[in-house]
């Protein structure tokens, strides 16, 4: 059994996301993963890749493990430096679709002298593992598997094919997900300054109005 995570030291990440004493659990096929990526212009499709997608091990947040208080935007918190990703966008990847992916590498087929197949193509599939970090309990990783094992290297053509397959999955919810952004939280002093500025502005407007009335 995995040990509990050390404490999260980044104050700007909500407590509900800290792992604390919670342990890792299995990711269900009815779950969704949220993956952050560099923003694309409005209306532009993913086309051939989700920007920055890593073929061998891609991070994302589980919607289910995050629970009812969780939000897709939680994936935009930076859990190492606290320098959060306010300008990035989010892709949604249904876990069932990730687990159903099968990408054969036809270059690995071995033929007999008569042309019949001696060994079929090695097939790439994917597993989704819950890997909580101290500041992000719903953190998961998607691993590529070749015939069931994690490969040390993935052929170039297969890397391109994998990126394309994930982009096609994410494309289905591209429009809906492009709306999600992490809101900048204003500090206490900034909020007081904004309120004071609004009050001063209103007072000046009232004085100007009263002077105009007095001059008539």
């Amino acid at each position, binding site marked *: 059994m995995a040990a509990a995570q050390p404490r999260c030291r980044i104050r700007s990440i909500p407590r509900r996301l800290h792992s604390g004493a919670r342990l890792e659990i299995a990711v269900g096929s009815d779950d969704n993963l949220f993956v952050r990526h*560099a923003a694309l212009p409005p209306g*532009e*499709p993913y*086309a*051939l*890749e989700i*920007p*920055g*997608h*890593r*073929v*061998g091990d*891609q991070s994302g947040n589980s919607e289910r493990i995050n629970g009812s208080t969780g939000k897709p935007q939680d994936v935009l918190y930076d859990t190492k430096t606290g320098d959060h990703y306010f300008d990035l966008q989010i892709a949604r990847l249904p876990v069932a*679709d990730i687990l*159903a*992916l*099968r*990408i*054969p*590498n*036809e*270059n690995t087929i071995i033929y007999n002298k008569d042309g019949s197949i001696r060994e079929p193509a090695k097939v790439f599939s994917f597993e989704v593992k819950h890997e909580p970090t101290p500041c992000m309990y719903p953190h998961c990783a998607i691993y590529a598997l070749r015939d069931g094992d994690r490969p040390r290297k993935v*052929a*170039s*053509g297969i*890397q*391109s*094919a994998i*990126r*394309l*397959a994930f982009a*096609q999955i994410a494309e289905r919810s591209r429009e809906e997900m492009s709306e999600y952004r992490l809101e900048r939280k204003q500090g206490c002093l900034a909020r007081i300054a904004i309120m004071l500025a609004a009050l001063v502005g209103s007072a000046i407007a009232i004085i100007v109005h009263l002077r105009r009335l007095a001059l008539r």
Partner: protein
Amino acid sequence: MMSELEASFTSAKEAKFPAAADTGAKGLSSWELAEMVKDYLAKRGFTADRSSITGDGSQLLQFFGGFDGIQSGVDIFPNGELVVIVRKAGMNQIFEVAPNELERVATLLTNGGSPT
């Protein structure tokens, strides 16, 4: 939906790399190779609509202006390997091309995945 996706990849063509050692691009850095590919394609009318460094370090050039809604791209890997991607009518085609076969890259992009 997924079976469609699987079927489209099953039919994808993947050419084997010719002997990569005899490439004209031998000795080029990955940045120089990417620039060479971009220049070559630009001279043949292909200017990327989107250019990005992928999460695995390759440089991906994407072209969206193809007829019949074709999306295509060239993935330039740091080891010098080139991959041409063509997405046409819901079908994905992946071609591995050696760096000394730039003409083939241009042909595949021009013909929407057809080698001739």
